[in-house]
């Protein structure tokens, strides 16, 4: 990154390079989270729309690039509308699919065709509601592209025995990123297919290695138990061994899940950020490392389990802080004088009725 910035510097004015800063505090967010949870319960879920907006505003507002925060602009009513629609769709789906197995199949097929629309709708809404330096982001993807990259390619890659899956994932990321624009300029993405294959292979190798280690350990324990004599013979001894084994399988499952996720995500994110730029406005760099990130995922999960969920706000803050700390953004002076022509806010208060589907149809 340093090199490329210096190289570009000849043609462009100097960039201001800085790490993304995250200023959220676990204690502060804990209060927001728990009070909003209570209010959501008391209002039978209605307040959850306000809770979501407040949470997003907290995280966006505390995330700063070049010392300027992001802003989340959605109103609770928009979120509430989207949730009501989502609840109705979900309930219909749930009830109809419990009526008959045949209907479930038909509905699943129907969902396959509706989901690209929902994805595009959600991306458009969420990016339009994200603003940086009073300029909004936008998503330009349409149904056709989303259907191709989120349904068609993944389904087709099943027929290649998943051999084409990393390529499909690369296409998916490319579709997502290259359709995002800021201040009227689209992100430019030039990712390599090979990196996706390497990331998938390394992730698989990591799981494989973990299973080997676990297998060898189990064998060693079994042999030691057999040689120590009676313990292995008694039903009690065998019971303890079975308990240890199932406990081990559980732990390996979670560690494997975290490890493969950490390997794939950090490799892909680093590559994607390296190869993505907002021409003339910003360049990005991500320096995720596998082990710290895996530890983050595992310890967060453990903390949530051990505190019966109370650690959730702390884990969320911790993850956001980590993600910010491994991300660097270089902004060029042009960012100081962007004018979003398309952004014609005739009324920034959003008082006029928005379209019925100017919402994010989502439960979460």
């Amino acid at each position, binding site marked *: 990154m340093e090199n490329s910035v210096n190289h570009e510097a000849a043609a462009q004015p100097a960039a201001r390079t800085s790490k993304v800063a995250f200023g959220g505090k676990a204690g502060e967010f804990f209060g927001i989270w728990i009070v909003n949870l209570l209010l959501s319960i008391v209002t039978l879920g209605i307040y959850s729309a306000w809770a979501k907006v407040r949470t997003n505003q907290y995280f966006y507002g505390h995330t700063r690039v070049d010392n300027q925060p992001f802003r989340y602009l959605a109103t609770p009513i928009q979120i509430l509308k989207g949730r009501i629609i989502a609840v109705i769709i979900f309930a219909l789906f749930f009830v109809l699919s419990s009526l008959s197995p045949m209907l479930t199949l038909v509905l699943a097929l129907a969902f396959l065709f509706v989901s690209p629309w929902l994805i595009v709708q959600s991306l458009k809404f969420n990016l339009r509601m994200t603003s940086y*330096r009073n300029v909004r982001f936008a998503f330009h993807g349409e149904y056709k592209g989303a259907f191709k990259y989120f349904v068609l390619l993944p389904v087709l890659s099943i027929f290649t025995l998943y051999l084409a899956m990393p390529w499909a994932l690369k296409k998916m990321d490319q579709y997502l990123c290259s359709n995002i624009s800021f201040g009227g300029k689209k992100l430019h993405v030039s990712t390599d297919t090979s990196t996706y294959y390497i990331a998938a292979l390394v992730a698989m190798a990591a799981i494989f290695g973990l299973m080997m280690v676990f297998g060898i350990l189990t064998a060693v324990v079994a042999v030691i138990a057999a040689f120590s004599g009676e313990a292995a013979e008694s039903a009690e001894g065998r019971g303890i061994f079975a308990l240890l084994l199932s406990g081990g399988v559980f732990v390996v499952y979670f560690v494997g899940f975290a490890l493969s*996720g950490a390997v794939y995500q950090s490799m892909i994110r680093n590559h994607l950020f390296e190869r993505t730029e907002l021409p003339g406005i910003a360049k990005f760099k991500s320096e995720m490392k596998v082990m710290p990130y895996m530890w983050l995922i595992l310890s967060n*999960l453990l903390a949530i389990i051990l505190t019966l969920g109370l650690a959730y706000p702390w884990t969320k803050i911790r993850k956001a802080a980590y993600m910010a700390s491994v991300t660097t953004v270089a902004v060029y002076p042009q960012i100081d004088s962007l004018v979003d022509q398309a952004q014609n806010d005739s009324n*920034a208060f959003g008082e006029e009725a928005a379209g019925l589907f100017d919402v994010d149809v989502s*439960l979460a």
Partner: protein
Amino acid sequence: MQSTNAISGQFQHSGSSTLYAASATLDAGGYLSVRCQQTNDMLAQAGTEDYRFGVVIPGLPVELRLRDGAVFVPDDNAFRWPQLSGRANLAARLESHKLSIVAAIVLSPLLLWWIIVDLMPMLASAAVPLVPDKVKQQMGEQTFYSLQQTVLSPTELPQPEQAMVRYHWQMALQQLHLQQQHYQLHLFKSEFFGANAFALPDGTVVITDDLVLLLKHNPDAILAVLLHEIGHVEGQHSVRLVAQSLGATLVIGIMFGNPEGVADLLLGSGSVLLQNAFSRDMEREADQFAIAQLTVLGKTPSAFADAMSALLAQHSEESAESSTLLKYLSTHPDTRERIQQATQPSQ
């Protein structure tokens, strides 16, 4: 309304990323003026109708938004506009007040528990009568059809046993004044189910050959099993289970949002545990129905205990070791608990 001294901050025009170091003043009438700090030029002016305060979030500055999309943000994160109404401040104050936080920690789990354990089943029971019979018929027929295609094969019981089961079935329906056309008894042989019986929402009751053979020397026990299944139909348990599971899934989904990745796993297993808990409650209800009706029919409730004992003896291996942990993973109550329930009233 009081006036505010010049507040320093940054100003941006609508849709523009250009930043101005600016100071904002609100006069006694609430009229806003924003001036550039360097040039002292007027950047924006607005009456109370044309600007709004942003949302108050702990730890973040409260911005001023103008109708045209311009925005002024104070430099001081802790600064709160004196003109803000108490209502606008309320959420943030609750979120940072110790007392309300402690109250939320105590009340949230209690209320959530109450909603899922008491309120949901209550609402589900209330909603069930609203479900048209036609829907229940559809549910039953569709499930029955797929089971017949997959795991059920024609009965191989000798005629006398078949007649014996049907006789008890008819007797139960007649004496309990149940609407006969609602109920259909079927005998099937099934490797998959083993010794078992089940009911479908449309009143279809299936008892397997293995179970009849297991209980053939104790016809009252067969009657007890049939009554248990009738109890499921009368209580409309299938529909209630769907309604309750839907409710619980929605509550968990909306309250906790979609915690990414790993937490999904936890929520997934959580809803399975819940569904099993609902299922156990309904088994208990059907047990109670069977025990009560046995008395009405002039039989001893211990016939139900006999049926359970026979089943318990058959899978003694698994059931004997039912630990407390397994209890939460099971869709049925502990068999010994069920036997106890059936023997208690007669003691």
